[in-house]
Structure formats: C-alpha cells, structure tokens
C-alpha cells in the first residue's frame, strides 16, 4: 500500500497580481491554494514580484501519488462533493472529514493532507 510521505513544498503568500504574473519553472507543480497563496513543488524558486511576499519551505503536508482508480475508490466512499471533469486540475475540500488538496492528472493524482492529520486520514481511507 502506498504511504503518505512528507512533501518538500515551498509556501508562497503574495499579492494575487504577483502570483498571476509569476512564470513557474517548467517541471514545477504550483497549486493555487488561495488567491494570494501558492504551494510549490519545484527544485528552483521563481522570482515573485512582491517585495513583501512570504516565501518559506514548508514540511507541514504529507501526500501520496495514487492511480486514478485508487483515487476514485477513495472519493466514492469519502467525498461528498463533485470533482471537476477537467484534467489536470487542482482542487481542495473535505475528504474523509479532513481538509485535503488534490492534484488530479489523467492517469494518476496526488492526494495531500496536513501532516498533523496524516495518521487519521490514512486510517480512514485505508492508506494505513
């Protein structure tokens, strides 16, 4: 069974305008968690056009890559809201009663939860 592992995110809080204008590294995954916040998985940091931006490494999230089928099984049991049909897509909301963030690609997806809830999330979804 795949395990939840700590993800080496960089957390960026900056003006929405600065985030909109940022060119993210080609290989990066940049998840827009809020209008003014990005969770970034990348080996290098782009320039953010906001002198007051907060840019910090963040090990507060754990995640696991799962196949589309494995994700579907989890969502069907543990997710009351409808997932969008488009791929790739970033969405967030309650899964198994825990605040989750999802990066969904065509064949697979990354399921992310705060590390503090990793234990309960794994237990509830059978990832334990």
């Amino acid at each position, binding site marked *: 069974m795949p395990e939840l592992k700590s993800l080496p995110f960089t*957390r960026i809080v900056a003006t929405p305008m600065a985030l909109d204008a940022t060119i993210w590294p080609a290989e990066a995954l940049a998840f827009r968690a809020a209008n003014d916040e990005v969770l970034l998985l990348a080996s290098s940091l782009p320039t953010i056009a906001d002198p*007051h931006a907060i840019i*910090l*490494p*963040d*090990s507060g999230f754990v995640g696991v890559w799962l196949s589309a089928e494995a994700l579907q099984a989890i969502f*069907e*049991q543990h997710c009351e809201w409808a997932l969008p049909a488009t791929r790739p897509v970033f969405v967030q909301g309650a899964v198994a009663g825990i605040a989750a963030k999802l990066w969904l690609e065509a064949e697979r997806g990354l399921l992310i939860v705060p*590390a503090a809830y*990793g234990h309960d999330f794994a237990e509830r979804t059978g990832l334990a």
Partner: protein
Amino acid sequence: MPVAFEAGDSVLVTLQRAGLHPNHGGCLCAAGDCPHCLATVNGVAYVRTCQTLAQPGMIVESFPTDDYPHLPPNTQRGPTVSARNLHCDVVVIGMGEAGQAAAAAATAAGKSVITLDDKAGQEVVGIYPELMVVARTDTGMLHIHAHDEVVVATGAAEIQPVAPGNHLRGIVTPRAATHLAAKGVALGRVVVVESGGAVNLSTSPALNIVAHRKGQVLQFEGLDTLKAVVIQDDNGLSQRIECDTAVVGLGFTPRDLLVRMAAGLKVRAVGDAAREADLPPCPNAGMVCSCSSVSAADLQRVWDQGFHEMELVKRATLAGTGPCQGVVCVPHMRSFLATRTAAADPSAMPDITRLSKVQAPFTARPVVRQLTLGEVAAGAHHHATPRTGLDAEHRRLGAVMDRIGGWWRPWHYGNPLAEYWAVREAVSIGDVSTLGKMIVSGPDTLAFLERLYPTKVSSIAAGRSRYVLILDERGYVMDDGLICKDSDTRYTLTFTSGGSSHAEMWLRDWAEGWNMDVRILNQTMSLGAINVTGPLATQLLQRAGLTQPYKFMQHGHASIANVPCRVYRLSFTGEVSYELHHPVDQSAKLWRTLMTLGADLGIRPHGLQTLLQLRLEKGHVIVGQDTDFDSTPRRIGMEWALRMDKVDFLGKPAIERTNKTVLDKQLVGFEMSAPATFEGANIMYEGEYVGYVTSSTHSPLLGKVVMLGWLKLVNGALPSEVMIDGRLARRVDVPFYDKEGGRARA
C-alpha cells in the same frame, strides 16, 4: 422454532406458510407499506419481513406485546456501514412502468440517470436539501447527489381497514392475498369485502372464497385470530360470516412520502405516486394508527379538544409518527377530518361537502425507513484530532496521551513529580508544537497590529518579543500570545493551542475588514516547537549548537542539532526557557538529539500536567481555564498589558466603558495547606459564596497548595481570608514562586 423456506421467499411468506404472523396481528400488505409485518431479524429491530428474503439460520423475533422491541446492549458495537457517493443529473426512484418511462425520457434528453428500485435491493430512506437521495442496500448506504431532479415513481399503497378487531391475524389486502396465495400460503376460508375498492382475486384460483360482498366491515371477530367478519351492505343490512381470512378492498393512496418531505426541491412524482388518493369511509371504531396506538376514539377525543387540522391531529395524537410514517393512518385521518368538518357546516349536505373538506396529508420527514445507527452514520466522520510531529515519540516513551486544546498531547510520562524537578533543578523538554504560529508581512503590518493589539507594537524592537493579551471588541480576553518583530514590515505572532484554530480567521477577518495591505501565513501545523526549560537549558543548547547568548524575550535563528530553528527566549515555567520552532518533519530528530545531549544533565521530558503545575506556581493565567467569557483585563488583574493612551485598539471603547463601572470580581491567587482541592471548588466568605477556584495544585517546592480563583469584592474590598473545601485559605499576590522573576532571566 425452525421453519422451512424456498429460495426467493420473503421472511413474511416463510412465517405465514408456517402459520405464524411476524407481529401478533394486523392487516398485512406484503408490499412494504404497513407496520404489521415488522419484526426483529438477526438482532435488528423494525425490519419489514415482507421486503426481506429469508436466509438459512436467520433469527426472527416478534416484538414484545406491551413494549418497544429490545435494542442490542449499548456495549455491543454494530458493524461499520460504508457509504458510496454517486453523482448524476437525474435520480428515478421506482422501476415500474412510470419509472422506466421517466428514466428513458431523461436518458434520451442526454441526462445521466441513476435508477433505484426496492425490488433490486435499493431502499430509499430520504431526500435531503441540495437534492441528495439516501438509499440503503445490502452492501452499504448510497448517497446520490442529483444535479437536475429526482423523479418519484414509487406507485401506490393499498388502504387498510379500520374497524374493531383490525389488530387480529387473518386480515390481508387484495394484493397480499394474491401474493400469499401464489406463494402457496394456505388462507383457509376467505371472505372478500369491497369497501369502495374493487377486489379481483380470479388470478388465485386456489383460494377458497366463501363470500364476496360489497359493503363495510363493522367488526372483525376473534380472540387473536380472525373467526368471522360482520359486514354491513349498502342497504344497511348486516351479516356475520365465519372465515379464516378477510380480504378488504378500500382503494389506493399514493406512495408520496418522498415527495412530501421535499417541498421546494426539484422532486416530481409520476405514475401512481402522483395519483389522487381514494377516501375510505370515516373511521368510527378500531385502530387507526397501530404504530402509535391511536384509535378512532382518540381521533374523536382530540377533535373535541379543538384539533381540526392534519398537522395538529398528528401532533396531538402522534398518529403517523411511527414506523410506517402515516401510510396506514393518513387516509383515515383525512376521511375523519373531512367528515367531521362537513358535519359541522350546517349549511351543507354532509355527504356531498365531505369531499371538498379533505385536507392534504401532513408534511413528511426523513427518514421513511428505520435505520441502524451504523447506517445513519455511514460516510460521516467525527472531527479529527491533529497530532504533532512528536506524537509517535511520546507514545514510544510511554506517555499518557489525551486530547487537550484540540490536539493529542502528552499528559505525563509516568512520573510527573520527576518531570517537575527536572524543570526546576536541571533541564527538561516539552512539546509545544500546538501553539498557534502566524506570520504577517506587508506595508500595513505595523498599522494592522497596532489596531489589533492593546500593547504598543511600535515599541517592540526587531529581534524582540512581547507578551500580549488578545481582546475581542467587547474588551474581553479572548486569547494571549507573543508578538515577535522580524522587521519593520514583518512580524511573527503566536497564540495559545486552544486559540490557534481561531487566530487565523480572526487575523484575516480584520485584515480584510480594515482593508490592510498585509499577507498572512499560518504556520501552526508546519512548524514543530520544543520548549527547552530549566536552569541548565542554556548549557544544553550550547552543546547542541547555540553559539550566541539570547536575552530574555529575544529571538533569532540558529542551527540546533543541525536542525534550522527559530529560537525564542521566554518563560512560562518560571525557569530559563527557549522555544525552538523548526520544520515539523524534523521534530523527532531534534527531540532525540536533545535527550541524548542532556542525559548527564538529568534531562527528562515533561507533559502538560507538569507544565500546568509549573505555570500556576508562576501565577500565569490560562485563557479559557482561568478566564471566563466576560473576563476583562481589569478583572484578571492584567491592566498592565493595556496601553490606554493608544489612539485605538480592538476592545478599547468597550474597556473605557466598563472601566467606569465598579469592579465586582477579580481573579486572584490563594494559598492553603495540603491537600489540593479540585478546580471548580466553591470559595466561601462568612458563610456566603464569593467565587470559585479555576486552577489548583500542590506545589512540591513551596510545600503548600497554590490556586487561582475568582473572588467577589465584599463591601468594596477583596476578602483576605476565605474558606475553600471547608478549610482556611489566604489570598496572596502572584506569582507564588520567584516573585522577582530572576530565574527566568538568568
């Protein structure tokens, strides 16, 4: 007793074939509508035996005759039931002709359709706002989210007879007679009565029909089992006919419970579920609602009391609130009320007016089927309690863990007294990862914080921290924490563990409300925090890599045990203390290295129990434990934390207002001899109640009990000696320990 069955037999058919009635008596419908075949099956009460297939080894128990069915003991945990969430455009409930047509039409219109049918094992129990249909299946609950509409095609139920003796065994509806006969159940001598509803049993040639009459049943005779029926024909002549089974046809009522619970939602009935209900004769005697034991006489009684509407009669009698949810009683209640209303109208011909006086059925409510707690709870999750990065470490060390302040936290590690002395005389580490930690950055940061906090934020120098009270608009203490200045445009704020969940919402709300140009990052769950405390704390940290000295209330960055840390020199325990905030995935590494490096210094981890004791000796208030919802800084004796000369801060106008009133109570310290009293104990003065204890502990170092508590002013002054637990206690100034605070600053 064991009974045989054939594949495909329902439990009801199986029992009937053996000459048994699942529930003592009452008309059977064999269609899932009435409550008369309910029984306890395999320990689950309220099972409709006509809708349940017989299985080998199944245990069926009738309900007690004079009591509710017995429930399993509450020590017995039922099985966990799973829920499946499905999404579609249209849900169609019932797969008869009308349902099939509706499903076909929706599919042809390009809609995604989910169909549910109880014959396929999908029993719909309710329709909820936002159009969610909940159904029970053998493999768990279905939660179906419909985007467009729900079509109810559930057909119609047969109306059951109301007359004295309708609780006997041997009464069936026409459909049930056909069904049971087809299944080979011996019904004996059958009398058919058409009471406004046609009955055609020609498809059941095996039946021994001794009489077929049109008219009303005046009486079902018998002790437990039907012996005869007394029928009155349309000419008023009555006749008694001996029989074993009575089949009474009263017409149909739509199965519309699901529609009646979904007012305002996109739910539509089709087919027989949308038909007009037939109206049975006015019930004059007999049981109307067997679920709630409401007789025709009971209807008359509440009518005489002035209850003349369906909704009111339901509430006055509880008719319609039982397992069948009114399927059986509603037609008779409507008939009764229409008849009485028409009769009360002197201007009209009662028989003709009756139909115009029929009231709509009462509103239905979910659920329409009895569910186990497991089925109700399917898909629901209780609030998850977060764990710090050290959770596994605490458990490995044998800590007693508890949920405190919204987190799993170590209460103690087996020897709280040793933990206490480690802090007071050597060095100890504690997990304070649960503290709220927020960063605020931006051009308006100082202006924002100046308006939020009652302290003068501009007087905090970079690299320094200050303890602050956090007030709401009413001037009441909501939380406390630290303001730490990083630069002119960037500050780090900390909050208590219990207050941290609220802190982010509070900051963002005011930042938006005041239109402040700030960025806010919540790092509470991203950073672990370890408190290194005790007279040897500095020595331990120097071993771990701390190169520069930190003054009291100073903060900075350092690599401790090769972990990048934000170091805060402060004190909550009363001893020299450093909080090390660090990436949460490195908590265990930092913790273990400190434990190893401090082994010869007598290091021990301390739990929350010890921490609470240590802080109480210092008189530090815990917001939420020592404070109440209306605790002003004046009442808790912390006006020193306010700068009333500031132009404005949150709660200032309210404090100016309340400061004009006479002080009525204060949070103060008390001492007395051992043993410690409980938190919440009454404080008495001259026989009168004057307050209560909020914190209490026996201080190992001071050799006496120290307490905080609320004390009323008596004749304008705080009593200096009071009774707690029937013992003399003295009011003293806090802190109890190290009044000058030299140890924390050492």
